[in-house]
């Protein structure tokens, strides 16, 4: 075996081995999902399959609709990656191929950059420890802890699998060489994966332990080295921060606005006393594991059994049987602690020390249930914001895996230095990692939660695609659609031809149709209790009023949800029994669309509404943050209602030379308001000028019926304060005016983008000149 490894060394096997591994990672989604889409879950994952649509309908705007009335929530960090995915889709021509490539991408990047990072930590001949580092990257990427937390969920933090090693690698390179090219490269990578930089709890799950390691590790360095490290880190991260202004600037102002408006939902979520108390309860309920399984590079076992997770089956069928094999990781850890002083060189010792301290803290945070230390963790809950770690077994998992893999790689290198013959242990470790990775397909293809025979990863059925396409053509994006039966989480539930089910947030429907799908009880936020009562009491008059108030003008009846799914956690039996034909007959009017197999039927409600309403009003939706308005013959004060969530930053701007030539076709007319067919322009350059313009009637803005917006339009104010070219006077004294309703914080994104662009161009230019000068 050793001979074989020596031969491998002689032929520099690493590029070949990496090529094979990367190919396997790229092929893996084809094996796991068998051609299905891995859509569904908390973020729907639709941005990977419908990237351009995602940018157009979701991430480009600071006003977003997630199965409910719109809210202020900038998420422009999720533009660069979908943009690249869109280009790839254009080149490749297949959503599935690009989607699968993206699924593999964070793991491929993590795999490659983990090796690069480790090579920077190790002194000596450049390729001397290729095999050990190769095995180390296997321990990291193919860790069963990552299977449970990242491979399976594939939520936004998954990009941190690649981004952590990237940032550490470039930071290390920059500190060593002071070459700004590494700062530049880091910026490019971080910009590409900027959607993940907002996943703060997961980031902190790594930063906290490693920060502690660095703080203690500073003891081993001379003062000037520490100062240089702090100075360079400051430059490195400040440059990163400025380059991310395109999403960071709107997000910072979002938080600032929330804090000044006194309605800081996120602050409340992080710092409220109620959450602090649930923190303790949650931690006590879930901290049932122990340190052994993480030490064996396995996920926590006990919690899977306590909560009946599918993982318990994998343990019973697989990991319990490979338990003893996995003890090799414990042995490696013990060896590294015992030998690092003798086997590592001075600088390596220091770096190892930092990771060892980080490892100890990370293991504690990932496990919590370590005798009396559990109480210490619960005590941490008193620290403002620490409640974000109440599901510690998830938030610290990625950071722990990366830190532990680094420690174990060091251990393999130490073994190699002790004796080349010990490389057999590295080979054995590689084998065990591969063995422990084998259940991935079984784990990821687990039945839908609380069902036994319903699986996910659907192939979008033609019936659904045709139906959504018809909705897109026929329904104005200003209306809302109520899906029946309602579920507990505002999910869009799609059943494919094989009976597989996708349940993810309703973004997928919005992306395909442009229309918001109100699909769950939480979609009604403050009106949820009223909705439930109306349904249970069959009070259809009030229910109809509720739908009218919330601009829900259509009802979608979904008929192909299986009984097993209806019996799952997604639905409430008592409520669902009342969401029957009687309810539909009471609320639904004319049938608008029926899909070809009759599984999706769309009705117009009996009492429809319109997004903006006033007397003699013509409106047109330009995009999510902009509406054009034209009021004809305004004689006296009149109210203007806007059925989106109340937000004071929706501003009205009076336009010069009023006209309504932007209205090409009337789509609908309700109570003296004509709605024109919506536009589809992403932005207009002149929108940025709204930042310089003074809005009108802002002091009259108030909440309308419930949580909507209402202004009072007063012709006298216009006549008094504005030039005559802002209105047309009619013969009877009335005036015609044109206004734009605009969500002002959208401009924060444009300003942030300008900052990012200027910085990046400047940086690029500087790098170019510097290179030329050299």
């Amino acid at each position: 075996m050793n001979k074989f490894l020596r031969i491998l060394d002689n032929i520099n096997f690493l590029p070949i081995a990496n090529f094979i591994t990367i190919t396997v990672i790229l092929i893996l989604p084809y094996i796991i999902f068998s051609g299905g889409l891995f859509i569904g879950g908390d973020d729907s994952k639709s941005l990977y399959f419908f990237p351009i649509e995602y940018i157009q309908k979701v991430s480009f705007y600071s006003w977003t609709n997630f199965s409910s009335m719109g809210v202020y929530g900038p998420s422009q960090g999720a533009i660069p990656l979908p943009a690249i995915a869109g280009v790839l889709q254009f080149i490749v021509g297949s959503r599935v191929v690009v989607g699968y490539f993206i699924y593999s991408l964070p793991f491929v990047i993590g795999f490659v950059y983990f090796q690069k990072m480790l090579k920077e930590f190790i002194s000596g001949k450049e390729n001397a420890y290729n095999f050990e580092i190769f095995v180390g990257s296997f321990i990291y990427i193919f860790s069963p802890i990552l299977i449970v937390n990242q491979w399976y969920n594939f939520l936004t933090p998954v990009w941190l699998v690649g981004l952590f090693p990237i940032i550490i690698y470039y930071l290390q390179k920059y500190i060593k060489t002071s070459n700004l090219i590494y700062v530049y490269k880091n910026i490019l990578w971080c910009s590409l994966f900027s959607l993940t930089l907002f996943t703060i709890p997961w980031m902190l799950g790594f930063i906290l332990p490693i920060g502690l390691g660095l703080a203690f590790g500073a003891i081993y360095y001379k003062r000037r080295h520490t100062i240089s490290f702090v100075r360079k880190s400051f430059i490195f991260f400040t440059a990163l921060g400025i380059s991310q202004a395109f999403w960071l600037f709107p997000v910072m102002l979002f938080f600032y606005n929330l804090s000044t408006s006194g309605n800081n939902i996120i602050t409340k979520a992080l710092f409220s006393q109620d959450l602090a108390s649930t923190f303790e309860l949650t931690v006590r309920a879930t901290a049932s594991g122990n340190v052994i399984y993480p030490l064996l590079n396995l996920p926590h076992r006990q919690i899977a059994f306590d909560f009946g997770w599918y993982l318990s089956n994998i343990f019973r069928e697989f990991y319990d049987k490979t338990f003893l094999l996995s003890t090799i990781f414990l042995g490696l850890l013990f060896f590294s602690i015992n030998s690092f002083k003798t086997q590592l060189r001075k600088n390596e010792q220091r770096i190892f020390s930092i990771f060892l301290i980080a490892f100890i803290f990370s293991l504690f945070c990932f496990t919590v249930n370590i005798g009396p230390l559990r109480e210490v963790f619960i005590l941490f809950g008193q620290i403002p914001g620490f409640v974000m770690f109440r599901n510690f077994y998830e938030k610290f998992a990625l950071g722990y895996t990366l830190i532990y893999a680094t420690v174990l790689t060091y251990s393999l290198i130490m073994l190699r230095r002790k004796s080349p013959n010990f490389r057999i242990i590295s080979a054995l470790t590689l084998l065990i990692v591969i063995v422990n990775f084998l259940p991935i397909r079984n784990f990821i293809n687990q039945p839908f939660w609380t069902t036994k025979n319903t699986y996910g990863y659907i192939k979008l059925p033609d019936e659904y695609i045709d139906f959504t396409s018809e909705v897109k053509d026929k329904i104005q994006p200003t209306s809302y659609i109520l899906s029946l039966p309602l579920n507990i989480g505002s999910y869009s539930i799609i059943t494919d031809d094989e009976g597989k089910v996708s349940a993810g947030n309703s973004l997928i429907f919005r992306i395909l149709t442009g229309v918001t799908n109100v699909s769950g009880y939480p979609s009604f936020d403050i009106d949820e209790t009223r909705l439930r009562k109306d349904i249970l009491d069959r009070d259809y008059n009030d229910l109809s009023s509720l739908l009218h108030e919330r601009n829900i003008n259509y009802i979608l009846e979904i008929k192909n949800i299986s009984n097993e799914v209806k019996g799952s956690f997604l639905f409430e039996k008592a409520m669902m029994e009342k969401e029957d034909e009687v309810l539909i007959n009471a609320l639904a009017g004319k049938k608008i669309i029926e899909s070809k197999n009759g599984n999706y039927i769309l009705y117009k409600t009996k009492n429809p509404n319109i997004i903006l309403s006033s007397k003699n009003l013509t409106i047109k939706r330009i995009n999510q943050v902009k509406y054009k308005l034209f009021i004809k013959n305004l004689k006296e004060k009149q109210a203007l209602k806007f059925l989106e969530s109340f937000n004071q930053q929706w501003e009205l701007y009076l336009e010069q030379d009023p006209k309504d030539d932007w209205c090409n076709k009337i789509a609908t007319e309700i109570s003296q308001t004509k709605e024109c067919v919506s536009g589809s322009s992403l932005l207009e350059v002149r929108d940025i000028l709204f930042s310089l313009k003074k809005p009108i009637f802002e002091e009259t803005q108030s909440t309308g019926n419930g949580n909507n917006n209402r202004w009072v339009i007063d012709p006298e104010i216009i006549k008094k304060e504005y030039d005559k070219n802002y209105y047309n006077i009619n013969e009877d004294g009335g005036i015609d005016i044109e206004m734009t309703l605009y969500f002002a914080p959208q401009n924060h994104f444009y300003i942030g983008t300008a900052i990012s662009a200027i910085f990046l161009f400047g940086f690029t230019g500087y790098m170019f000149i510097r290179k030329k000068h050299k």
Partner: protein
Amino acid sequence: MKKILKIISRFYKIKWIRWGLIPSALFIFWISASLSFYPHASFTTLLHIHEKDFSTDLPQNILLKGRKISGEFKAVDNYLGILAMKFNIIGDNNFKEDDILVFRIKEKESKDWYYENTYKSRTIYSSPFFPFGFPIIENSKDKIYQFELISPRDNSDNAIGVKESEFYITSYYKYSRFEILSNPSDFFSYLSKKIITSFSNLQFFLYSTLYLTPLFYYVLWQLFGRSTKKIVKRVISIDKIYSRLTKMKSYPVVVVAKVIVVQYKLPLLVFLFTIMDIIFLKETYIGLFLGLLGLWIVVLRLFRLSNKNILFLAGFLFLLYVILRALNYYISADKASVWIYIFIVIAAIKALRELILEQKKKLN
């Protein structure tokens, strides 16, 4: 600040303060804090555990219709007011169909029940050591009382249960403050009773170790907190006396064993304590844990255990963990895992500290 520190250090150097006043103060802290903060009985309540003087009628250990937990016990004091029992949780405690339990108690000679009340099983789930309260019986001392706990329903999903081998009851005697504080002799009489009844209860004692920690650490510091050389000298002299006292003709194996015992008697003892804590105690007592940790620190300091030895201990505990898991002793296995983590932390800290010392040495 310096002045204050000087005064403190001057006082500290006075022997009777170091060996008398401070330990006494810490001793009083242990007793008073334990009596005051014990969660299961306030300072004005005495408790007595009855382990055998009762019976149960529970096939399969589940309390269903027609079965009962019953027994009698002798009240050891006046003011009997609570009878607590330890239950096991059966079923999935989903509260969909709460079980109802009837508790009643009377004096043995009496025909009628003195007190009867119904309880929902969910309240018992939230507190497995459940106290059944009743109006205080002032003259209860030396009288025999009978109690019953029955379930009128046949609800196997939410029934409560007991393990006969682990079942015990505790009687509580609630004194009024007025009674205790009426005169100094009553107070001291009550205090002595409280101390005796409390500290004769193992659960209480183990709980109280939390407040014993300062005294324990203080003593450890006084004994072993000196320079290592002095400690080693002290150990060697103790060893010499020991070997003189135990002089006898020995076979080589016995000599080796003796050397090991002499050399490693403290580590062995502490290791045994640790194993006992893992195997025999079903709960984690913070005081006991901290005490053992303190002892381990002393052992590490005295015997200069190498990292290899510490990790060997961790490895041994891992083996113990595997065995305990295989035998389904989950609580003990979890406790073993705690000590594995502690040993890893100790080994890491030791190695990192040695690295600092080496660096300093090189610099010097």
